[in-house]
C-alpha cells in the first residue's frame, strides 16, 4: 500500500520501497486533505439554507415507491405528511390515498364553440390543487387563437382584454391530456410517474428526482416544475387532498393536472368543470355509454391536439353544429310541411300575427319597403 503522496518524483525501481515520510511530504498530504474537506464542506453549503421543516427525516428518506408500499406503510407515510402539513399550514388535512374505481376510464371533452376564455378554470384549479401562488404554477393554459388556424404556435396565453370573448379569436385551453400512450411516463428514469387504471397519469412527488425529462417529452406543455419553494398562503390551503394529487409539493418536483382525482374518484366533478360558466367543459366515464363524454364522442365533431404525435389523448375538443343539419331528411320534411301549412306565418308563434313588421322594416332600406308596399 502506498501512502497518499502528491508527487515524489519518478519511481526509480520496481521493488516495493516504503516511502520515506519526510516533513515536506507530511505537510503536503495534510494540506491536501484539509483542502479537500474544505471543498466538500463548500459543496454541501446549500444544505445550510434548508429550513428545519424541509430537511427530510429518516422515514421520508426510506419511504418506498407508491406501488411498493404496503397499506401500513402508506398509512405511516400519510400520517407523516399530515403532520408536516399541520406544522406548516396550521390545518389538519383530510389526506388519504384514493384508488381508481372499477370499470371507469375518465375522458374529458371541451367545446371550443362555447369556451369564452374567461380563465375561471385556471384559477379554480389553482385554488383546488394547492399550487404555488408565487412563483405561479397553473395547470391550465388558455390559448387565444386567431380564427382560421389550429396551430398552437400562433396562440397567445398572455392575452389581456377588457372583456372576452374577442370576436377575432377563439380560445383553446390546454392542460394534461392524460394520454393513453404518455411520452412523459416513457422518459421518466425513476418511474415516478405512471398511468393508473382509470387513465390518469399520476406522480409520486416523493419519488420524483426533478430531472424534468417529462416536461421536455410532453407535447402539450402540461407539466410544471417547482423551481423554487412553493409559496402557498396558509389561509388558501385546500385541506381536501390525496397522496397522488393535490398534497403540498416540495421544491424540485414535477406536478401537473390529475383530473382532480381526489374529487373525481369519489364521483365529483373536477374543479375546472364545476366552475366553467358556459358548460364548455365535460367530464365523465367513457366506458359508460350514457355518459356525456361518450355521447360527445359519438355525435360531435371531435378532434385531439397534435394527433400526429401518437399520444392518444383522453382529452377531446369538439365543436357544435350551429345550424340544423340540412342533410337530415326528417328535418327537411318537417320544415317543408310547416312552410306549406302555415304560409306567411311560418316561423311565427301563436298569439302573434307574425314577426313585427316594423322591426323588419327597420332592418331594410326604405326603397325596398316602398317597392313592396
Amino acid at each position, binding site marked *: 500500500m502506498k501512502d497518499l503522496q502528491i508527487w515524489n518524483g519518478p519511481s526509480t525501481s520496481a521493488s516495493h520501497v516504503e516511502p520515506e515520510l519526510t516533513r515536506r511530504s507530511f505537510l503536503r498530504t495534510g494540506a491536501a486533505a484539509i483542502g479537500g474537506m474544505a471543498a466538500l464542506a*463548500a459543496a454541501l453549503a446549500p444544505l445550510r439554507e434548508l429550513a428545519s421543516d424541509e430537511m427530510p427525516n429518516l422515514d421520508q428518506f426510506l419511504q418506498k415507491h407508491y406501488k411498493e408500499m404496503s397499506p401500513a406503510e402508506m398509512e405511516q407515510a400519510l400520517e407523516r405528511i399530515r403532520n408536516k402539513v399541520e406544522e406548516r399550514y396550521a390545518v389538519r388535512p383530510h389526506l388519504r390515498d384514493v384508488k381508481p374505481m372499477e370499470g371507469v376510464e375518465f375522458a374529458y371533452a371541451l367545446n371550443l364553440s362555447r369556451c369564452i376564455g374567461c380563465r375561471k378554470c385556471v384559477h379554480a384549479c389553482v385554488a383546488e390543487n394547492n399550487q404555488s401562488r408565487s412563483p405561479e404554477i397553473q395547470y391550465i393554459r388558455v390559448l387565444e387563437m386567431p380564427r382560421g388556424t389550429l396551430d398552437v404556435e400562433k396562440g397567445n396565453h398572455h392575452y389581456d382584454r377588457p372583456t372576452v370573448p374577442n370576436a377575432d379569436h377563439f380560445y383553446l385551453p390546454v392542460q394534461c391530456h392524460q394520454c393513453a400512450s404518455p411520452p412523459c411516463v416513457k422518459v421518466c428514469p425513476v418511474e415516478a410517474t405512471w398511468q393508473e387504471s382509470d387513465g390518469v397519469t399520476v406522480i409520486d412527488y416523493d419519488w420524483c428526482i426533478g430531472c424534468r425529462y417529462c416536461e421536455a417529452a410532453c407535447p402539450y406543455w402540461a407539466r410544471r416544475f417547482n423551481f423554487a419553494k412553493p409559496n402557498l398562503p396558509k389561509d388558501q390551503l385546500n385541506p381536501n387532498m390525496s397522496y397522488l394529487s393535490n398534497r403540498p409539493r416540495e421544491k424540485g418536483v414535477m406536478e401537473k393536472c390529475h383530473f382532480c382525482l381526489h374529487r373525481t374518484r369519489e364521483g365529483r366533478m373536477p374543479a375546472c368543470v364545476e366552475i366553467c360558466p358556459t358548460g364548455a367543459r365535460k367530464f365523465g366515464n367513457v366506458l359508460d355509454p350514457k355518459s356525456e363524454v361518450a355521447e360527445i364522442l359519438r355525435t360531435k365533431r371531435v378532434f385531439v391536439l397534435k394527433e400526429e404525435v401518437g399520444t392518444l389523448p383522453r382529452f377531446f375538443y369538439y365543436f357544435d353544429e350551429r345550424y340544423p343539419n340540412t342533410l337530415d331528411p326528417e328535418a327537411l320534411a318537417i320544415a317543408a310541411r310547416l312552410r306549406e301549412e302555415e304560409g306567411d306565418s311560418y316561423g311565427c308563434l301563436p298569439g302573434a300575427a307574425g314577426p313585427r313588421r316594423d322591426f323588419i322594416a327597420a332592418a331594410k332600406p326604405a326603397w325596398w319597403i316602398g317597392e313592396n308596399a
Partner: protein
Amino acid sequence: MNQPTTFQPATTPTRAPGWLGWLLPIGFVCLAAVLFNSSTASDIPLAPSRTFDKSTLIVGPRRVAMQDPPTVQIEGRPQSCNGCHQIFTSSHPGGAALNFHQDLVLHHGLNNRCVNCHDTADRQKLTLRDGATVTFAETPQLCAQCHGTVYRDWQRGTHGKTLGSWVTESQAQRRLSCNECHDPHSPKYPSYVPLPGPNTLRMGDQSAPVHPEHSGKQNPLQRGFNKPASDRNNKVTPDGVHP
C-alpha cells in the same frame, strides 16, 4: 518481463518544481473559503402576482332562474303574476309600450312579443306553439320549439352545464335548465372580464417594455399584440399562415 511493447516517452519526465505541490492545496483552501462564504440562496426575481376578486369563483348556475310558480317583489312583498294581471289588462299585448316590467331588456331576435311565450289567460304559465301551457319549471320545452338542435344536445348532455357528479345514475347530478345560463328575454351569452393571465417565473410581467438589450426585437410572447385586430387576422396568406 515479456510485456508487449508499450509507448515509451521520448524524454524522461522532469521533476516538477517543489512550490507547485504547495500551491495546489492552498488554492483549494482559498476556493473553498470563497465558495463557503458566497453560497447564499440566490433570489429568483419574481414579478408580483396579479390579484383578483375571489368571489368570482363561485360554483353554481350563472343566474337565478324564475322560480315556479313565479313571484315578483312589489314593495318588498312577494306577489304572484296573476295578482296584478287579473285586475289590469295589458293594453299592448305586443309589448310596444310597457308601463311595467321596464327593467326587462328584450333582445331575442324576431321573438319579441310577450305573448309569444307568456300565456295570456294564466300569467303564471307559459304557452307552447300549439296553445298548450307549461309551467315555468318546464321552460326547456318552450325553448325547444325553436331551438331544436340545441335542445337535442342539451338532452344528451353535450350542451349546457352539469353539476354535482359525473356518475350518470347519481342523484347528485343536476343539469342546469336553459334559463339558468341564458336570460330568456335576451339569451345571448354575456361577455366576461377575464381573470388575470399567467405570470410565469421566467417570463415576468408581459406588459413591461422590452429590455433595451433586445431593442428592435419584439417580445415573441407579445407577437401581434400591438397591431390592430384587423391587420392581424384578415391577412391570411394562401397557405393559411398568419403574418
